[in-house]
């Protein structure tokens, strides 16, 4: 399977996850979107040395994974994209920040090591949060929630249309790439002589397709108004989910649960 096909199957897998049924899947998209934003902001706000305070934030995505019935492993596959830049930045911290922050027995741990671990954990937590949002909410419902939150109609319609065509275009690119590699076995990528024509051909076809798409939209009565997914009403359960979860995040932000639990045992 080439890179393009992998992306295509990843896209399909996310759609399948979002189509499942669970208590989390049944919640309103707006509640889940706001919850995710609040979670990420609170995770981002932790200080670089607050590793022990940050660890309890892990409980929320773990709980959601269990409630939604989604395997945690599916999310960790995506870490291959997030971690390189985070690690490239974080790996320098132990080199430049060498002041000793704590001792674990005889082992001295520098501030750089703590800040590096905090940074990586933040990366993992934020990834889990946005993954859970998309894995438990169909994309058209996210777009409907964005409209409800007054994101401009042009942008939301463009988002929906592009998402629809990402699958089509990616499939075409996958077929073209396969065909190219069958005719050029052993070649790693597209040869310099075909740089322009390979994507250029598809681009020209796509521009024509866009015109046809617009004509068909007009024939079906498109007058600059797009019909979004039926909006789920914002029920009391959604409000309770949102309020309680944000209250929990704030509590975990201000109270270091790890320290608190540890003191109960150590003392």
């Amino acid at each position: 399977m080439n890179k393009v096909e992998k992306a295509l199957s990843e896209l399909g897998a996310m759609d399948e996850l979002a189509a499942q049924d669970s208590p989390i899947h049944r919640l309103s998209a707006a509640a889940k979107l706001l919850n995710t934003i609040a979670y990420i902001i609170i995770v981002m706000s932790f200080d670089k040395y607050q590793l022990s305070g940050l660890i309890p934030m892990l409980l929320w995505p773990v709980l959601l994974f269990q409630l939604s019935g989604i395997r945690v492993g599916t999310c960790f596959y995506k870490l291959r994209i997030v971690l390189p830049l985070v690690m490239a930045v974080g790996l320098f911290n132990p080199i430049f920040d060498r002041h000793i922050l704590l001792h674990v027995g005889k082992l001295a741990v520098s501030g750089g090591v703590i800040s590096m671990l905090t940074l990586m954990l933040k990366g993992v937590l934020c990834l889990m949060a946005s993954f859970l949002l998309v894995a438990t909410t169909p994309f058209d419902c996210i777009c409907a929630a964005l409209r409800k939150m007054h994101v401009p109609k042009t942008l939301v319609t463009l988002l929906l249309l592009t998402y629809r065509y990402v699958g089509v275009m990616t499939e075409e690119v996958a077929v073209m790439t396969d065909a190219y590699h069958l005719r050029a076995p052993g070649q790693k990528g597209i040869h310099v002589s075909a740089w322009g024509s390979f994507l250029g051909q598809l681009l020209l076809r796509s521009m024509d397709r866009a015109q046809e798409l617009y004509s068909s939209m007009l024939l079906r009565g498109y007058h600059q108004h797009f019909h979004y997914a039926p909006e789920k009403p914002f029920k009391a359960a959604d409000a309770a989910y949102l309020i309680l979860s944000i209250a929990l995040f704030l509590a975990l932000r201000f109270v270091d649960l790890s320290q608190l639990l540890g003191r109960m045992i150590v003392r």
Partner: protein
Amino acid sequence: MHMADALLAPAVAATMYVASGTVAGVSIHKLKKDDEPQKLPTMAVTAALVFAGQMINYTIPGTGSSGHMCGGMLLSALLGPQAGFLSMIVILAIQCLFFADGGLMALGANIWNMAFYGCFVGYYLIWRPIMKSSWFGSGRSAQRLRIIVASIIGCVVTLQLGAFSVVIETSLSGITELPFGAFCALMQPIHLAIGLVEGLITAAVLCFVFESRPELLRDVEAEGKGANDKKSLITTIVILAILALVVGGGLSLLASSNPDGLEWALFGNEEEGYAANMGLDEEDFGVSSKAADTAGSIQEATSFLPDYAFPDSESPVGTTVSGIVGSAIVAGVAVLICFAGGFFRRKKAEEVPAEGTKEEQNT
């Protein structure tokens, strides 16, 4: 260059959202004003194409490695800066949501770093001036050369600006201990090489479009225009000179005797008084001034957990041990939640077939 949420502080992420949101608002307004409803499907299909096209690996001759196409320049050359910018926003949002390529809260920063520079700086300061100039004379071959030059300069400059913004945003967020100069030295050369390759690939695609359907490209005339537009050439040279000064000025930080220019500018020179660089009065605005005390008290009142710090805790060893023990308990709770979830799911799965058999028996 896609930034993850972990690399930004909430204040920086919010600022970048406001900046990118403002440009998006202006772009939408401009599109509506131009009344181009048919543009929406074209934008969507082209954005989807660029999204898919960025996954194609192009072999770089003689290196064994591969490169990708630059979306911002391609989209603005085909759709114009405003439509290109909105299409790039959508591409970045889909990449972030479905492929974890960039964070949800870092989306504002990513839009700025890749879409704004690629579409607006790339189009208004590079693509349009070069395409309207009389560089390389007239005729189709001159047009083709202008496309190649504009694509390469556009990709290199916009990628350099984007990479420099990543450095500034990360440094301002206080995420990395890497000194500003060293961070620049790490980011800029890599993106210089990437920019050159992306420029060449983008130029190849745009040249193909020019040969087949030149009317699809912005500011390109099919038959080549009259070549005596001296005013636009001068404008181009002036703009490029200003751009070179700005980029050169940014890069000179790497070579200067004081590489941490940003830190120097932000925190001042201790020997000369912290306020000396800003030209402010030391007594009124220095570190021990009333203004500083007031700012300090406001910061203390508004900051999350102001007194929290590992090193200054009352009993460092005690705090450390309790922190580790507590974290282990939290990890244990997380594992328990997983076990409980698995147990209930298994139980539910066992119940469902049992009920099914009962129904079958009844029928």
